[in-house]
């Protein structure tokens, strides 16, 4: 049995390697049930982080957690990313923050547990962080029920208007901002 390979920061130069066209479009094109999850990634000074990259993993609307290949489908002739074919729900998204530290994801609400798992990578972050964006409060959810109200609030995406949810991620808290709850898995 081997011991784990240590994590290292994603650094500043992943930009031409990891992001791919359509990375933030998990929802099949034109699906009327699609919702937008968006927000900012911020540091301990409350400044947006322009060099973070977020990954999302979630159950399909029917609750399936099997996922599907084809998130970064490539053209075998040119090697370029041609994107998802818009039929399968792969459950996986990858979105770099823009120069404002902002990200946006278009997806379908997960079935079963009402949360989207978020994995945060950034320059300056030596080991990635997991959190969850809950699109709805979930009475009886073991994680939410274990948290104090102000901590729990950091995991609840805020409906802004129909089909649009705001979810900011504070890598570090300060006097004004509550630090986002980050997770470990036993």
């Amino acid at each position, binding site marked *: 049995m*081997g011991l784990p390979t240590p994590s290292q920061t994603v650094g500043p130069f992943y930009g031409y390697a990891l992001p791919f066209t359509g990375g933030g479009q998990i929802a099949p094109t034109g699906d009327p049930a699609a919702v937008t999850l968006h927000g900012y990634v911020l540091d301990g000074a409350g400044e947006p982080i322009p060099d973070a990259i977020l990954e999302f993993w979630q159950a399909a609307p029917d609750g399936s957690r099997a996922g599907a290949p084809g998130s970064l489908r490539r053209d075998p002739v040119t090697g370029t990313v041609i994107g998802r074919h818009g039929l399968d729900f792969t459950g996986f998204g990858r979105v770099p923050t823009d120069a404002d530290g902002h990200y946006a994801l278009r997806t379908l609400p997960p079935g079963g547990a009402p949360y989207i798992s978020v994995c945060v990578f950034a320059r300056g972050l030596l080991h990635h962080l997991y959190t969850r964006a809950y699109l709805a409060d979930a009475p009886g959810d073991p994680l939410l029920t274990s948290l104090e109200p102000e901590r729990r609030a950091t995991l609840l995406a805020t409906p802004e208007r129909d089909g649009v949810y705001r979810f900011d991620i504070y890598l570090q808290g300060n006097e004004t901002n509550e630090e986002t709850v980050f997770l470990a898995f036993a």
Partner: protein
Amino acid sequence: MAETQETISAEIAELRDAYAKAVADGGPRSDHPARDYRPYRSSVLRHPKRPLVTVRDPEAVELSGPVFGVTDVTDLDSDLTRQHSGEPQGERITVTGRVLDRAGRPVRGQLVEIWQANAAGRYAHQRDQHPAPLDPNFTGVGRCLTDDEGRYAFTTIKPGPYPWRNHDNAWRPAHIHFSLFGTAFTQRLITQMYFPGDPLFRYDPIMQSVTDDAARQRMVAEYVHDLSVPEWSMGYRWDIVLDGPAATWIEEGR
């Protein structure tokens, strides 16, 4: 004025000694870097101050994970020396190894992504503007899927060390960035592979952020003479073990 290497090196030594003492006193070992590792200055405002909340839910969605397939890679993606019309400059190498989980099981059919600087230590990235030449025949990005034994293989160029602005005269040891998926989202890993015997190891706060000596060694590839190809390439082997639990219900050969 930028801080000196002496300042950073003193902090590195202090934190390494503190970790060694804590372990000697019966404290836990750690395989990963602490997120609040001050010698890496960019970490100061980018780490949580509160402890992580441990999820023990066997139904957690994170115990499953994304899957990839043959549509997500092309055959040429694993040869970084053949992505342009000409040959890149530098020392041609192959890097191969296995991706395993904590129990030693191979991670099959999963995505491995790499990116790196060219032989002169320059990234093909707009933000890297240090005065080393770009190579029109080298982009430095590759990917592949692991085979049934969890094996991956890349052909590339040995990257050069490069300067950065953590402190005065800061240089990164040569490295290849690796991104890996396991069978569960909990096993996600982004790390860096280093080359054996690099004199820059001791000066580099990113590598030294792994304060456990044995864990730090696990980021260093092995030069394997039998993997070198006569008059063609130098061979390196690097096995990767993913941390984190996975659901037990995931069927074989998924």
